[in-house]
């Protein structure tokens, strides 16, 4: 940019005028921004919520409703203490059927893939250690090859009902083991990334899920019994 080169100082402009000009401009900008922010915020938040809901809907096989859980000091909790900032904590979701019987967790996680970080969300039933579904949220994998992890129905649908921990196998070599996921020919790295993300997330979250599920289902089943 050539702008600084053409800069011609005019010494007769007093400093206060510069400050006032900038201040005015800043104030005006702030005013406009706050206004637009207020105007668009509801829509934006609704969009985000809808997108999240749609993803959870998909991976938890249409739950009736779900709870948002926070990972707080090594445990999962629904209610946060007042001093914790919910925006800074990792969130996972716990879905229920219409009759309030639990379906499972929806966990979002991400790790480096072939090109860049792959983020996905998956549904997981801790009681049976099976996956309920998987949806890729964000990826830059090679179009036509690596992006099959989100676009290839055969690949995505495998994550419905597979046992954890997952193992990836080549399509022709599957043995029928319930832990197996057929990888995509030619996109081994991308397929493995998906499997790796899910396995790692479960390994990291496993104990937390365990204790939460025990706590959540315990009282509930007692209620049902009553």
């Amino acid at each position, binding site marked *: 940019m050539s702008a600084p080169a053409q800069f011609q100082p005019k010494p007769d402009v007093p400093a206060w005028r510069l400050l006032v000009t900038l201040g005015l401009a800043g104030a005006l900008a*702030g005013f406009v921004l*706050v206004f637009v*922010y207020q105007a668009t915020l509801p829509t934006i938040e609704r969009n985000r919520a809808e997108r999240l809901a749609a993803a959870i809907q998909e991976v938890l096989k249409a739950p009736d409703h779900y709870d948002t859980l926070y990972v707080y000091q090594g445990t999962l909790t629904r209610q946060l203490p007042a001093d914790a*900032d919910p925006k800074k904590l990792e969130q996972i979701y716990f879905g229920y059927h219409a009759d309030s019987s639990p379906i499972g967790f929806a966990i979002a996680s991400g790790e480096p*893939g*072939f090109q860049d970080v792959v983020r996905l969300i998956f549904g997981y039933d801790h009681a049976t250690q099976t996956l309920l579904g998987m949806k890729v949220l964000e990826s830059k994998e090679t179009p036509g090859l690596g992006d099959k992890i989100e676009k290839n129905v055969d690949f995505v649908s495998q994550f419905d009902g597979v046992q954890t921990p997952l193992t990836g196998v080549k399509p022709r070599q599957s043995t029928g083991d319930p832990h197996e996921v057929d990888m995509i020919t030619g996109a081994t*790295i991308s397929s493995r990334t998906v499997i790796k993300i899910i396995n790692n997330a479960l390994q990291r979250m496993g104990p937390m899920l365990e204790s939460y599920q025990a706590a959540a289902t315990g009282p509930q089943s007692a209620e049902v019994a009553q």
Partner: protein
Amino acid sequence: MGELVWILLSAMVVNNFTLAYFLGLCPFMGVSARVSTALRLGLADIFVLVIASVCAWFLNTFILPYAPYLRLISFIVVIASLVQIVEMVIKKVSPVLFRQLGIYLPLITTNCAILGLAIFQTNRGYNLLEGLFFAVGGGLGLTLALVLMASIRESSEMADVPALAKGMALVLIIAGSLSLAFMGFAGLLSSS
């Protein structure tokens, strides 16, 4: 640690700032005719990127939660003024360093790589350390791309490039070829 190394390498080669994210294209196209210039510009770039990364982290952690709509404005204003201050300090403290790097600083402030770094970093929620690795990786990536481009242009200067392709068209084709070559780094450190 592995995470940090991946951030560094990703910004440097796998998703090179210039060749994959198209950040810092103006100097890449314009200033990269001489290797020595390119090298100094790259070093200055790393320097400013690190400052920008720290600024962005600071703003993002302490100010923006209360006024998210000010993100863009605050990034650009704070980074630009901080670079200006640093420039003045360098000029005072080390005139030699200033002659080597300082003249490039104003050029860099308005470079999209700086703002790009700040935005990418906050979008991905990097913490301070991760941000620093990201900035250094990105800066190294920029430097690498700049120096390679400059040395290739220097050597093509005396080639009989067809009149049609002289100038920007050739630069773009070279950039495309470099970008193709950098695709070889895809998936680095993420396969295991």
